[in-house]
């Protein structure tokens, strides 16, 4: 801005009371709050899935009386499995939530015309887009983590009650499960495999949601299908579609799967943050994600209600 315009704005300022002091992060914080109000289904959906699963688990607990439980080797495997399934179920829910959230992120406000209200406030397009990216990268995985931990705690309590009632050892259950190790692994896995690793896919959807007038998911899938089709025809390979698939479900070598143990929370799994952060694929993906966010920000600047 040139000096003349600065003087102009300054002289306008001089006539008025000083505005409230506002930190730079405040609009970002409130924009994230807005996302959670607007997309209450991401909280309700996770709680609903968790509720249904806990109910099913409660019913399954009556099998604890069966003779098979008396064999210690089988015992731990059968007791531990539902905890892993709970975590896996919530990971699946997280993937779906992130997909639908990002596909609607910049579309909803244009569809219901509220973009005109949001743009009438001193919040930049950058802040708005960053808030949406922040939900995908931090808020959603942490939410899933919290819900899963709460599920595990409820399951442990139920499990302990049933075991104690049948005269079995509760202490060994807690010790064998190694629940704190599981939670650490879970948090790491959610933030890497289900947030950072698939982030480019979600940012691509976010970009398309700011551009498409309808059917965001279809428009987003179109180039993927086209590239995969051309690749199949020309090279007779399916490398690209496999790449996108692995990104989406968070299954890739650098994350945390070692010793061929496919389930991320298994006892054979080790956290390998250095290997993850050192993977060129991660940084190429994040570069693509950043480019998508820049375009999404530009798009929001130009877009009005649909």
């Amino acid at each position, binding site marked *: *801005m040139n000096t*003349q*315009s*600065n*003087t*102009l*704005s300054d*002289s*306008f300022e001089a*006539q*008025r*009371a000083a*505005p*409230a*002091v*506002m930190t730079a992060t*405040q*609009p970002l*914080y*409130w*924009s994230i*709050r*807005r996302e959670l*109000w*607007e997309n*209450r289904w991401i909280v309700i959906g996770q709680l609903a899935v968790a509720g249904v699963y806990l109910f099913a688990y409660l019913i399954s607990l009556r099998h604890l009386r069966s003779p098979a439980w008396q064999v210690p080797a089988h015992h731990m495997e059968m007791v531990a499995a539902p905890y892993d399934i709970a975590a896996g179920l919530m990971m699946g829910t997280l993937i779906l939530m992130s997909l639908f959230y990002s596909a609607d992120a910049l579309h909803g*406000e244009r569809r*219901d*015309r*509220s*973009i*005109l*209200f949001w*743009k*009438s*406030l*001193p*919040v*930049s*397009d950058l*802040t708005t887009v960053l808030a949406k990216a922040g939900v995908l990268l931090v808020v959603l995985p942490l939410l899933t983590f919290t819900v899963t931990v709460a599920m595990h705690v409820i399951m442990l309590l139920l499990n302990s009650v049933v075991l104690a009632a049948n005269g079995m050892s509760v202490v060994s259950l807690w010790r064998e499960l190694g629940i704190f190790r599981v939670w650490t692994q879970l948090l790491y896995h959610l933030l890497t495999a289900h947030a950072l690793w698939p982030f480019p896919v979600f940012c691509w959807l976010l970009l398309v949601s700011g551009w498409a007038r309808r059917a965001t998911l279809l428009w987003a899938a179109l180039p993927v299908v086209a590239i995969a089709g051309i690749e199949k025809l020309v090279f007779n390979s399916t490398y690209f579609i496999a790449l996108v698939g692995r990104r989406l479900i968070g299954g890739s070598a650098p994350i945390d799967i070692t010793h061929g143990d496919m389930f991320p929370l298994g006892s054979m799994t080790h956290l390998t943050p250095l290997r993850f952060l050192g993977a060129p694929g991660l940084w190429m993906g994040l570069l693509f994600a950043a480019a998508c966010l820049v375009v999404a920000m530009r798009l929001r*600047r*130009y877009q*009005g*209600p649909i």
Partner: protein
Amino acid sequence: MPVIEAHGLRKNFGTTLALDGVDLRVEEGRILGLIGPNGAGKTTALNAILGLTPYQGELRVLGRDPWSARDQLMCDVSFIADVAVLPRWARVSSLLDYVAGVHPRFDRAKAESFLARTTIRQRSKVRELSKGMVTQLHLALVMAIDARLLVLDEPTLGLDILYRKQFYDSLLNDYYDRSRTIVVTTHQVEEVEHLLTDLMFIDRGRIVLACSMDELESRYVEVSVNPDKLAAGRALKPIHERQLLGRSVLLFDKVDRQQLAALGEVRTPSIADLFVAIIGMGGQNAAQGVA
């Protein structure tokens, strides 16, 4: 010092020219009515002023370029785009929280006291409110912002008479203080007529009339001409002629009022009559041009 200043403002959508070299200057403390037929470029002009659309030409709002500095500009500018832009999923209380959170010049207590005068409850969701109540809510939010410029684009569209009247009454009594500037577009000109200080007609992307209301009163005169004086009246070159209850009503621009008083009953034309005379005339000329 102008609040809005534009020179040669142009904007086209494909081959359609929405703004065709608009020059505009709005001083502080004015209430400007921007009036024009559908598709005349009113909303495009407002969108350019609000930084919602890119444009060609020169435009400064409060000394800033709206397109490159929308978010900073919105600290000092408020707008109500039309009645249905508040997010339907939001609770009244969360909207208050949000605006208080992001706007440095928002006075929450003020907004709450405006809302207390209505039947809107803070726990309600926007989707549960009637159209009139949503407008009241939006107005309460906007009036609690200490802005320099308020832009209203068809703010009362689709509201009943009571809500429309209440809207402009609140605006004048509780908001306007001669240091704020208001720009309003509406088709219901008779409702804003008494509160405007300035008037601007826009047609096909061009400003066809820009004057203050004082100027309008001294410049334009409407005469309900006695039948025997009709020829004399027409000789003075009226800009428009219409029939009303069997008498000819002639509209004059810059003709001496004393001289016209001899022809019949003299009065200042309403904005609606002036609009028909000026824009309608342009339409006829254009039609002739095409033919």
